[in-house]
C-alpha cells in the first residue's frame, strides 16, 4: 500500500517535471541560429481547432495565429509583451501612456480608459463597457491578445457572444507582415463586426472574409453556416486565394523581423491640426525615421516582446543596462563609466549643447526641447490613430471630431522633470458616494441624457453638443431620481465638478478627478536646429514664450468654458510671476553681459597693470637698485 503511494507521488512529480520542461521547451523560431537573413515563412495554415486549412474544407475556416505562428514561436511568452499585457496585473504599468478615449457626443462624455493602472484613467467596466464592447470599439487599433483572449475579462452575459466571435488572438501579422496588400483597415472593420476569430485572417492579402458575427444570434454555430430563420444575415465566411497555396498546402508570408515603420504608424500616427499647415508635405516627420531608421531600432525587444519604451528610468526586469542605452541620453550622450562603450549606437551623434547651462538637463527631459510640435501661443489640437481611428476606411475626417487632444503641453512629471505631453480634458457623468467619485455607467446615463440634449450636429462634425447650466441641472435632477439617496450625481468637465445646491443652482468645485489626463510624448523628434534653444535663450525665456505662457484651451461641452484657457505653466508647478520676472530679465541680458564683461576687463586690467609694476620692482631689485 505504502509503495503504491510512493509510486504515485513519483509519477505525479515526473508528470509535473515534464509539464515544466514542455513549457520551457524552445521552439524552432524562438532562438536565432545567428544568421542575419530573414527566414522564408512558407507555412501551412492551421485553424483554431488545430486542423490544417485545406482549400476543399467546407466551411473554410480562418487560420489561427496562435496555432499557426505558435507552432514555431512561443506564443505564451510573446503574450507577456508590452502590446498584449495591458490587463495583466503582474505587468508593470510603466509611465502613463496614450489611453483609449471613450467618446459619446450625445452625453457629453470624453473619458480616458485603460486596463493599465495609470492614474487618471478608468477601467472600461467602470463605465459599464464590457470587454467585448471595448474590443468592438477600440480593437481596431489593438494587435489582439491580452484582454482579447483571456477568459477572466469576460462577463457572464457575453459568454455566448464570445463563442460566436471567438478570441481576438495576437495578430502577429499586424506588425510582422511586410506584404503591401496586408490590410490593417480590413482587420479593424472585422473587429468592429465582432469577427474576432476572422480578423487576422481577413487582413491577409490572400483572404477575403464577408459576413458579420455581430449579426449572428448567440446560439450560432460557426460550423453550420447560415442562420435558418434569418437568411438575409450573412455569417462570417472565408475565401482563400487558391493561387497562393502550393502543392503542400503551404502559403508564403512576407514576415520580417525589422518591422516597417508604416506598420507601426497604423496605430501610432499623430496629425497636428494646424490651420497654417494643412497638407501632408508641410510636415517632415521624425528626424530618426527620415534619416533611414526604423522604429524598432530603438523600440527593441526579445522573444518576450517586452518592448523598450525608451523613456528615462524605465523599469525593466531584465537587460536594464541594455535598456538604458536605448534612451535618448543612452544613445547620444557619452558615458565613460561603461567598461565597454555603448553610446553612439547606430551612429547617434553626440550633441554639443553649446552655451546651454547644465541646469536644463536636470530639470527637462531631452524631449522637451527636441520632440513634438514646436510650441505655439495656443496649444494645438491633434488627432491620433488610437483616438480618432486614423487609417481606417470611412474615418471621420472632421478636425473638430471628438476626442479633443492637445499637444504639446509642458508638464512636470513624477520624476520632477518637465516633458512635453499630450493632454485630454475628461468630461463625464459620475456619482459621489462617501466622498469618492466614480463614473456612471453609460447604459444608465445614455437614455436619461438623450431626453435633454438636442443633437444638432447635422453636418456630422462630431464635436461637442452645447450643454448649458440649465440642461445640466435637469439631467442631474433626472439622474438623482434614478439613483439611491446615498449617492449624488455630478458632472465633471473642463477641470471642475458640477453639482446642484439646495436652491437648484449649479455649483462649480475643483477636484483632482477633474484634472486633465496627460501622457508624455517623444515623437516626432525635430532636427537639432529646430530644437528649443537653438536660436538662443529667447526660445523659452521671453515674456511671450509658449514654453511657459502658451494658452491651453479648456475643452468642454459647457458654454461657460467656451474660449477659456489656462497657461501651461500651471502644469509645471511654477510660480507664473516668478517665471515672468525671470523671462523679463532676459530682456536685460545683453546689457548685463556688457556690464559684467566691462567690470571684468577693468579688474583684470588693474591686476595686470599692478602685476607689471610689481615685476618692474623685482627687475629693479635684481639690478641692485632700490
Amino acid at each position, binding site marked *: 500500500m505504502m509503495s503504491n503511494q510512493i509510486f504515485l507521488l513519483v509519477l505525479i512529480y515526473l508528470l509535473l517535471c515534464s509539464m515544466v520542461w514542455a513549457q520551457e521547451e524552445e521552439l524552432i523560431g524562438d532562438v536565432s541560429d545567428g544568421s542575419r537573413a530573414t527566414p522564408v515563412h512558407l507555412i501551412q495554415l492551421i485553424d483554431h481547432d488545430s486542423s490544417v486549412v485545406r482549400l476543399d474544407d467546407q466551411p473554410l475556416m480562418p487560420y489561427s495565429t496562435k496555432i499557426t505562428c505558435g507552432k514555431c514561436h512561443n506564443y505564451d511568452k510573446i503574450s507577456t509583451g508590452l502590446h498584449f499585457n495591458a490587463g495583466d496585473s503582474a505587468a508593470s504599468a510603466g509611465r502613463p501612456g496614450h489611453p483609449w478615449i471613450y467618446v459619446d457626443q450625445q452625453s457629453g462624455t470624453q473619458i480616458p480608459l485603460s486596463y493599465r493602472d495609470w492614474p487618471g484613467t478608468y477601467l472600461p467596466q467602470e463605465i459599464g463597457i464590457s470587454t467585448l464592447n471595448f474590443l468592438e470599439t477600440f480593437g481596431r487599433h489593438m494587435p489582439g491578445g491580452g484582454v482579447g483572449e483571456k477568459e477572466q475579462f469576460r462577463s457572464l452575459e457575453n459568454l455566448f457572444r464570445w463563442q460566436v466571435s471567438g478570441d481576438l488572438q495576437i495578430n502577429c501579422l499586424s506588425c510582422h507582415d511586410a506584404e503591401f496588400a496586408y490590410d490593417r483597415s480590413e482587420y479593424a472593420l472585422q473587429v468592429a463586426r465582432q469577427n474576432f476569430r476572422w480578423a487576422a485572417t481577413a487582413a491577409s492579402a490572400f483572404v477575403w472574409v464577408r459576413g458579420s458575427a455581430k449579426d449572428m444570434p448567440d446560439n450560432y454555430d460557426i460550423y453550420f453556416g447560415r442562420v435558418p430563420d434569418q437568411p438575409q444575415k450573412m455569417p462570417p465566411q472565408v475565401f482563400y486565394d487558391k493561387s497562393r497555396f502550393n502543392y503542400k498546402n503551404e502559403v508564403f508570408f512576407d514576415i520580417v523581423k525589422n518591422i516597417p515603420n508604416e506598420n507601426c504608424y497604423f496605430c501610432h500616427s499623430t496629425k497636428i491640426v494646424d490651420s497654417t499647415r494643412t497638407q501632408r508635405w508641410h510636415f517632415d516627420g521624425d528626424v530618426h525615421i527620415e534619416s533611414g531608421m526604423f522604429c524598432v531600432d530603438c523600440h527593441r525587444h526579445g522573444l518576450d516582446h517586452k518592448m523598450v519604451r525608451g523613456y528615462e528610468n524605465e523599469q525593466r526586469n531584465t537587460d536594464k543596462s541594455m535598456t538604458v542605452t536605448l534612451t535618448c541620453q543612452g544613445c547620444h*550622450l557619452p558615458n565613460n563609466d561603461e567598461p565597454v562603450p555603448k553610446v553612439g549606437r547606430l551612429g547617434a551623434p553626440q550633441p554639443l549643447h553649446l*552655451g*546651454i547651462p547644465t541646469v536644463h538637463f536636470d530639470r527637462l527631459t531631452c524631449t522637451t526641447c527636441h520632440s513634438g510640435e514646436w510650441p505655439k501661443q495656443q496649444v494645438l489640437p491633434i488627432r491620433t490613430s488610437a483616438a480618432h481611428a486614423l487609417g481606417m476606411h470611412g474615418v471621420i475626417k472632421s478636425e473638430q471630431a471628438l476626442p479633443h487632444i492637445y499637444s504639446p503641453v509642458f508638464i512636470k512629471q513624477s520624476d520632477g522633470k518637465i516633458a512635453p505631453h499630450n493632454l485630454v480634458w475628461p468630461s463625464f457623468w459620475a456619482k459621489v458616494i462617501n466622498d469618492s467619485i466614480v463614473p456612471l455607467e453609460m447604459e444608465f446615463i445614455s437614455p436619461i441624457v438623450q431626453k435633454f440634449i438636442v443633437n444638432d450636429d447635422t453636418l456630422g462634425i462630431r464635436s461637442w453638443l452645447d450643454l448649458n447650466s440649465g440642461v445640466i441641472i435637469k439631467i442631474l435632477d433626472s439622474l438623482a431620481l434614478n439613483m439611491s439617496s446615498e449617492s449624488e450625481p455630478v458632472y465633471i468637465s473642463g477641470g471642475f465638478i458640477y453639482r446642484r445646491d439646495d436652491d437648484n443652482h449649479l455649483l462649480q468645485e475643483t477636484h483632482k478627478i477633474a484634472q486633465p489626463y496627460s501622457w508624455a510624448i517623444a515623437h516626432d523628434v525635430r532636427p537639432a536646429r529646430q530644437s528649443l534653444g537653438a536660436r538662443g535663450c529667447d526660445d523659452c525665456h521671453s515674456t511671450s514664450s509658449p514654453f511657459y505662457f502658451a494658452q491651453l484651451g479648456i475643452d468642454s461641452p459647457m458654454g461657460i468654458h467656451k474660449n477659456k484657457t489656462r497657461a501651461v505653466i500651471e502644469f509645471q508647478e511654477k510660480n507664473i510671476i516668478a517665471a515672468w520676472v525671470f523671462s523679463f*530679465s532676459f530682456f536685460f541680458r545683453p546689457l548685463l553681459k556688457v556690464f*559684467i564683461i*566691462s567690470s571684468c576687463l577693468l579688474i583684470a586690467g588693474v591686476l595686470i597693470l599692478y602685476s607689471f609694476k610689481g615685476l618692474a620692482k623685482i627687475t629693479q631689485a635684481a639690478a641692485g637698485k632700490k
Partner: protein
Amino acid sequence: MYQIVVIIFFVIMAGWVFWTVKSGNFTTPKLKILLQKTLVSKKEFIKLKGKSYSYALRILFYQITLALFFLLAVSGFVPIMITGGHLSGIPLIIHVTIAPFFCVSLALSVLFWVYFLRFDSKDWDYIKGLNQKRKKKHKAILDINFWQKVNFWTFATISLPAITSIILGMYPIFGTSGQEILIELHRYSTLLLFIVVLFHIYLLFIKLNNESYI
C-alpha cells in the same frame, strides 16, 4: 557634493562665530563702533570736498560691494544648502539681478582702492621680518595692513574666475562638460571669496579690539 561642502563650511563658520561671541571678542557695541568707523553717512558725504570725494567714494563702493556680496552669498548658498542641485526660481532671480551691480561695484572698488592697497617696501620688510622671527622662534606681530592687502588682492584675483565662469557660460562656446566645469569653478571660487571676506571681517575685528594694530 557641493551641497555637503557648503554645509560643512557653514557649520564650521557658525562654530567660529559662536566661539567668538562666547569669548567676548564680538559684542553689539563693538559691532556698532565697527559700522560707525566703516560707514560714511549721507551728511558726511555731502560735506566732503576735493580729495575727500575720493575717500567717500572709496568707502561707498566698498560698502556697496560688501553688502551686495552678502546678498549674493545668501541667495546663492542658502538654496544650495537646502535643496542641493542648481539655483532656480526666486533665489535665482535675486542672484542674477544683484550680480551685475556687484560686478560694477567691485570693479570700481578695485579701481579706487588698488593704489592704497598696493604692496610696497614696508610689506617686503614685514615678510622678511616674519621669516627672521620664524627662524628665531619669536612670536610674529600681526600687521593688519599687510594682511588686508593680501585679502584685497586675493579677492580681486579670485573674483575674476568667479565672474567669468558665469559670463562665459552664457555664450555658445562651451558644451555640456565645459558648462559643468564652469559652474563648478563658479561655485568653488565664490566659496573661496566668501572665506576671503570672512577673513577680512576677522581682521577688522582684531583691528577694533586692539587699536595698536591700526
